[in-house]
């Protein structure tokens, strides 16, 4: 099996520096900080989609325009947290999966870096949208298209990340993938994309349920016809629908993953996650179909169980990666060790090699070869004038030659400037003598 991998797959070396913390600690940090990050990303993406939907609906029913405004207020907060919380998993993945992460980045280069300007634009648009609600009251088309554009960007960016996440898993593809568009065709990219979008909608549903249900939220000052119950019921239904759809998309995500990362451990972890989702679905269903005043009865239980589901799914995600990459990581490690040995050996050899005999017995000539010959030759112009010319200028002026070498000036208009070379006094005299000996 190893041979098979060797033939197809590049095996690069890892950085020869120790991990900064024990591996297990880094893994825990990676998994948890990632979940925290993705939670706010979900709220940012889901919130934008719902704002757009609600504002379009608001063209007919003013109440929904207000709802859109209220949701929009949360996006700018959630997006700031999403970005700053992304730094910790970024650091951790850099450290744990150095070879895999950077290779995947490089293979999708332009798209990877375009995340930065694209997200910046999307963020600026969310502010412009939020702060121009009054000003653009009579130009809804323009106002809504701001949100539309920012939603479009938010819907595109996850694809870039998912392509990277996928490429990381498959070093065996690195030699054949040609850029982002090609990598999009990896079988697992789109299933995972829809998995993510559904998660965003589901999470945002729960968030809205909580946000508009808070006691401290001054509901009646914002809405006249819409009721708390209606909004909460809609939000719950969204979570219910999105989570139900996950029962279909989830298996597709799993089945489109190459089998190399499967293990009983993985199945067990994912399975546990699914089991926790079942009571949550039941409680939500009861909330939606039950009496209006009871809708929030099981909310914290729902949030907790779904939180556990997400934690198990996130861990499963890591387990798959760890299993899938383990054989390749072994090869990388072996290669790194062998390489470091060679480095040591070559360094020793160089130290012990009989001191390279200087290009000449004349110390001046040796210095000239090393320091000057890049730019000067005997009788042709290279970068600077030939030695012949130097001799003709300085044959009676050793001091002048010395001074020039110490601190070269700018003389010939059609030549570049000669840099000072930092030679010692002795070296300058040697090389000057050597030059003046040439006739």
């Amino acid at each position, binding site marked *: 099996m190893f041979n098979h991998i060797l033939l197809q797959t590049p095996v690069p070396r890892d950085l020869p520096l120790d991990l900064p913390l024990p591996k297990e600690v880094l893994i825990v940090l990676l998994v948890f900080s990632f979940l925290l990050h993705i939670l706010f990303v979900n709220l940012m993406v889901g919130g934008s989609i719902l704002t757009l939907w609600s504002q379009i609906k608001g063209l007919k029913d003013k109440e929904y325009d207000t709802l859109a405004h209220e949701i929009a207020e949360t996006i700018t907060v959630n997006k*700031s947290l999403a970005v700053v*919380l992304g*730094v910790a998993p970024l650091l951790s993945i850099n450290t744990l999966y150095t070879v895999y992460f950077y290779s995947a980045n490089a293979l999708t*280069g332009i798209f990877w870096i375009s995340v930065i300007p694209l997200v910046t634009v999307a*963020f*600026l648009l969310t502010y412009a949208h939020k702060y121009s609600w009054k000003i653009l009251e009579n130009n809804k088309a323009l106002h809504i298209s701001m949100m539309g554009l920012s939603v479009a960007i938010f819907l595109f960016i996850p694809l870039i990340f998912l392509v990277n996440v996928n490429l990381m898993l498959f070093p065996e593809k690195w030699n054949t993938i040609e850029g982002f568009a090609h990598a999009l065709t990896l079988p697992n990219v789109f299933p995972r994309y829809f998995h993510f979008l559904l998660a965003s909608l589901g999470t945002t549903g729960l968030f809205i349920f909580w946000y508009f249900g808070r006691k401290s939220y001054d509901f009646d000052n914002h809405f006249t016809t819409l009721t708390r119950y209606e909004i909460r019921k809609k939000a719950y239904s969204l979570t219910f629908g999105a989570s139900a759809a996950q029962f279909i998309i989830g298996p597709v995500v799993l089945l489109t993953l190459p089998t190399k990362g499967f293990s009983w451990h993985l199945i067990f972890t994912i399975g546990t996650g699914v089991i926790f989702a079942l009571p949550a679905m039941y409680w939500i269903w009861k909330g939606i179909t039950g009496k209006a005043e009871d809708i929030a009865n099981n909310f914290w239980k729902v949030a907790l169980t779904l939180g556990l589901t997400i934690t198990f799914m996130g861990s499963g995600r890591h387990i798959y990666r760890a299993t899938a990459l383990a054989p390749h990581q072994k090869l990388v490690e072996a290669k790194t060790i062998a390489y470091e040995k060679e480095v040591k050996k070559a*360094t020793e050899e160089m130290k012990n090699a009989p001191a390279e005999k200087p290009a000449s017995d004349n110390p001046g000539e040796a210095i000239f070869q090393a320091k000057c010959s890049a730019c000067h030759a005997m009788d042709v112009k290279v970068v600077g004038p030939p030695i012949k010319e130097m001799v003709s200028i300085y044959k009676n002026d050793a001091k002048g030659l010395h001074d020039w070498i110490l*601190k070269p000036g700018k003389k010939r208009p059609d030549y570049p400037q000669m840099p*000072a070379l930092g030679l010692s006094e002795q070296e300058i005299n040697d090389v000057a003598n050597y030059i003046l000996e040439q006739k």
Partner: protein
Amino acid sequence: MDFPIFHLDFMGDRLLIAIIAVLHVLINHGLAVGFIPLVTWIEYLGFKKGGKNAIVNNEWDQLAHRLMTVAFIITTTIGAMTGVGIWFASSLVNPASIGSLIRVFYGAWFVEWTVFVTEVVLILLYYLSWKRSLGSIEAKAKHIKLGAALSIFSWITMSIIVSILGFMMDTGSWVENKTFIAGFTNPIYIPQLAFRTPLAALMAGAIGLFLTKLFTKNGSSFQQDSSKKIALWMLLMLPFTLAGALAYYFKIPELMIGNLPVAVGTMDFQSWYDLLVKFIIGALTTVFLIAGTVYFKPKLKIPTIVYILPVIGMLGFAGIFERIREFIRKPYVIGNYMYSNTLRKEDYPLFKRDGVLAHATYSPVKEVTEENKLVAGEQVFMISCSRCHTTRGINSVVDKFENMYSLKAGEKLNGDLMKNYIKHIENARYFMPPFPGNEAELGALVEYIKHIQEDGTPIDHQATSMR
């Protein structure tokens, strides 16, 4: 070289990082670290001027709020994203160096991250609770304390980053010890911090003064009063900035020498060094003149356009120091450990022995032959020159050679001369790392450069490793 190589063959990879990084530093210094204390101070002045019946003086409070709006929107969009952008760009352009830095500085970065999260939470609270803070004296007093806390956290964020920047310039004893503390206590840390703190405050003052001119009614007494306060802020920061700049300035040559295997290239450095003095004098004098006029002659009518001068002056001033920082690092990305072609110094003997291609995982050829020499040459170029040069774009290697040999249009490059030059490249121009490969690879590189000179076909643009 052990990552697929990302290369932007038009703009050059260094420019990509430079644009993102400089933008980030300017926003971080000018609109966060230095700006938030200024805003908090103005808010505090408004609070004190509130009088008997009001919680605040509205004019002052509104000015503080508007200044903060600008800072909030820019820092949480362009500021935050360029911060992430530095990681993204480095991971593409210099994976080996950023990867090594993260391994060494994971702890510092993690602490930095927690501080940074706190900073973001505080900035959200501070800005978004502004309206609510106008409800009562207590709420306002609390809000001002929040501003103070935010100021402190943004300063701490900067002070950690500075240590990392310092490390990249001068690894101190890290190369021997490879421990985290050794990296953190490197010798340039304190001078850098002493310089950046007042610099940030002064930049913020320049920006604040300009915005105040825009946000207040021309000729009003409030405009005069508020501008006067900001001018005072600038005048107070000025001597500290000057002292910090000078301390840093005198520390640089020491570093330069420590950083260079042979003390070459002093002249290239000298011209930058001279330019630096001009910038220090020019920018600080501009700031002094304008802040001084606003402070001592508040009634004098100065056109808005003049207020831009200190802003430009300070941006240029900060920019040139960033440039110098880059300059000192060369030919290393991590002083004495990794060259800026991202090859480790200690790997060179191996490369000299076996050649670089033999150890380049992603190179399709491992050894130079007569048939493959252009492909091999392209690989050698990508490995040893492409982090700083393009083939035909900005800082093109062909142009560099043509200019250096003062070739006339149509004249061809001479392979033997180029070979001899590249062999001694680190002696000719100290900022370039030594050529890593063997004789055959040198030959292939030269053939490749001649080939692009002749038929002008550069490599596949943004090609990652060539296949």
